């Protein structure tokens, strides 16, 4: 118990240190640090619509981040959430545009299932390569992520392009308004119940089922799991599948929620930020919920800040980067202690 308390405390310290370092850099560059941080608070919490915006950005981070947590339990590092998210959104879009006349609930259901299926497929391929041939999943999921982004680009610039669109960036047609589950704020009771329910289900699966415990054993020591009769490959594939499914679901929620159409390269960092979210959340479901809200707030503030200061938005991406940097260092240390056990060298 004291061990987990310590880990929480060290994570909090880490976030605070990131804030201080960012403040230091901003101060050294001559920006008004006080204004910037009060701007962050406003943009994330106090300004009109800010807290809604925080939740709106927290939702995809949470769903994809939960996927990272699931993969991680079984010892795999799925960092391709971005591509799985895009592919999910694309498939949901294809279903919705292809069946415009259909009854809304049914179309949404089918679109969501298509998104989940697509996300699953997108991570199952690297997953299969990993459990069958031992291919490094960090590389393959990342590569698949780029392919996913290119597929999105192709679809929005080609087959699904909005012919009347005039903007510089290619975008798809809008889905009918009846298919949307939120207004443009991206938050509604439906979405909150859905996402909350998913988080609870993932928690139950990981912490309160035999399958979840098998995943933990496989993640920590696959050799021992094999000796115990656990089908290590099956568990690994299931973890990959579920991980991709969650990212795909995030894509559907994005489309039926705040998006309504897909713009090429939308939310370009959400999948990667979600990895940081999962790490800051100590790879637990509860921690990831908290971290997702934190980073959702940051994202909301990044969009809000230019309104109140003359700070260029990339300056705040600095804070993102700082947290990611520090959390990776810490993760390395934690992973060495609690991660999968090194293969036996002796004998």
């Amino acid at each position: 118990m004291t061990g987990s308390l310590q880990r929480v405390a060290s994570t909090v310290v880490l976030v605070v240190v990131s804030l201080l370092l960012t403040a230091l850099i901003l101060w050294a560059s001559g920006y008004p640090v006080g204004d910037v941080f009060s701007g962050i608070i406003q943009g994330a919490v106090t300004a009109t619509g800010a807290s809604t915006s925080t939740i709106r950005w927290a939702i995809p981070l949470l769903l994809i981040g939960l996927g990272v947590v699931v993969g991680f339990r079984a010892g795999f590092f799925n960092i391709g959430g971005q591509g799985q998210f895009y592919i999910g959104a694309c498939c949901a879009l294809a279903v919705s545009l292809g069946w415009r006349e259909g009854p809304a609930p049914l179309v949404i259901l089918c679109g969501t299932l298509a998104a989940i299926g697509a996300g699953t497929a997108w991570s199952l391929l690297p997953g299969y390569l990993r459990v069958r041939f031992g291919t490094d999943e960090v590389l393959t999921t990342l590569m698949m992520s780029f392919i996913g982004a290119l597929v999105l680009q192709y679809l929005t610039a080609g087959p699904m392009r909005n012919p009347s669109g005039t903007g510089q960036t290619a975008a798809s047609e809008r889905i009918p308004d009846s298919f949307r589950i939120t207004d443009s704020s991206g938050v509604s009771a439906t979405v909150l119940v859905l996402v909350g329910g998913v988080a609870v289900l993932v928690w139950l699966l990981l912490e309160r089922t035999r399958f979840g415990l098998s995943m933990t054993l496989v993640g920590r020591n696959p050799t021992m799991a094999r000796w115990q009769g656990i089908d290590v490959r099956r568990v690994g594939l299931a973890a990959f599948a579920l991980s991709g499914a969650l990212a795909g679901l995030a894509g559907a929620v994005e489309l039926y929620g705040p998006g309504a159409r897909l713009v090429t390269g939308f939310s370009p960092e959400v999948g990667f930020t979600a990895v940081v979210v999962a790490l800051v959340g100590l790879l637990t479901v509860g921690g990831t919920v908290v971290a997702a809200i934190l980073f959702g707030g940051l994202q909301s503030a990044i969009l809000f800040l230019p309104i109140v200061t003359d700070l260029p938005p990339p300056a705040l991406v600095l804070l993102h980067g700082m947290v990611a940097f520090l959390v990776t260092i810490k993760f390395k240390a934690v992973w060495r202690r609690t991660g999968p056990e090194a293969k036996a060298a002796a004998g």
Partner: protein
Amino acid sequence: MTAPSDSASAETPAVRCRSLGVSFGAVQALRDVSLDLVPGRIHALVGQNGAGKTTLAKVLGGLQAPNTGEVHVGGRKIPPGDVRAAQIAGLSMVHQHFSLPPSFTVAEALELAAARKDGRSFFRRTELQRKWQNEVAELGGPTILSTRIRDLHVETRQSLEIVRALAGDARILLLDEPTALLTPAATDQLFERLLRLRDNGVTILIVLHKLREVAAVAETVSVLRDGELVLGPSEMAEVSEGQLSDAIVGPASGADRTVGMAPAAEAAQETLLELAGVSTRESAFELGLNEINLRVESQEIVGIAGVEGNGQRGLVSAIAGLTPIADGSMRLGGVDATRAGPARRRLRGLRLVPFDRNTEGISRSAPLWLNQSALRLVGRHPRRFPLISLRQYKRQAAEAMDVWRVRYDTVAQPAESLSGGNVQRLILSRELAPGVEVLVAAQPTRGLDFSATNFVRRSLRELRDGGAGVLLVSSDLDELFELSDRLLVMYGGRIVARFEAPYDRRTVGDAMTGALR
């Protein structure tokens, strides 16, 4: 070659420590240990698992900073936890686990170990070969220098660890359980080497488990119990074996509660495990099996003897379902299981005590309760409610571990916090729980102390008396003779001889070395 202080210090102990204390959290690993080692002799350090032997060796070697006390090597005080200073003072350690990098060639590994400040950064292969030729002369031909560490036999690796330790001109050698992985013959060879080193003036401190080995090699003996030095260093001639074992075990410690199942009164003899003509493919790491025929009936222990590396791993792995059976068939409880996966074999009552308990038997970082409940995760139960109660899992794990006398603080602590004997108890508590039909026990007592060894052997016997069948793979002939109802000898991936009690050590030994076909 020799340290300058050597001649002047006939009376200076090679190693001296004063009131060493080490604690890990609430556990006191060493308390107030003071010890002087006379130079040029072989000193043995014995004690039960968890008595603090390895900790003491690490403190002396500078790998572990003590909380209190100080260490002197060759008359020089060593700053706490300073490996480098201990090495410069002439002390070198051979660890319980192999430390040479597996991907290096022997010559490279030795050069790495010997690298000193004055050493050059670049080297040529041929030069290395020449340089290290003498050191490895007795380990094998000239080709050994270009062999990769991972391709060497266990015995050679062990010997090489000693060569490595001496590569830096060490005058004091600490060996932490060097015999744990060795066959009896290799152990004898090791001892001969140590005696030769002693004759050359090297001081040796060796951590051992078996009293027989202590008697064979040591000149003085010291005993640790619960972190305290309870005996020695005493001349071997002056202590009896009885005194030693009393010192090790301590005053009338509560005997292990007998565990096991109620004896099945009129259990009919039935064949629980049967291998007929089983062959497996040879892999890069393991000899293939060649037409193995064997049967384990209920209420019997079948021993598998053999020099390590003659296919025992392959046999256990094939029975477990981890290596596919290429030819022949296997039956479990009378049902064909040739193509069954590991899970189905487990569900049919196959239980395993694997060779390497720390990597194959447990997950070191997972909590105790999860390690204990691992078998509950196997198989599907589609009708059962999917959610489980962790509290129930933890409670049952705690009960099982209590029955088997695993010493732990909480069920949530990671398994790596247990000592070797306790890890084995944990594994037994899982594998010997009700539901066991056939147990395959691979080296179940290797590296364990006396009381843990006795406990494991008693458990196997009780398991057999309760009606189960046991296949016991061991390289300890005494153990096999003591426990086995029948004994098979493996050599080169096949079974070359079958014996019934009473056994003749000589004939069995001949079969093990391939002299008897």
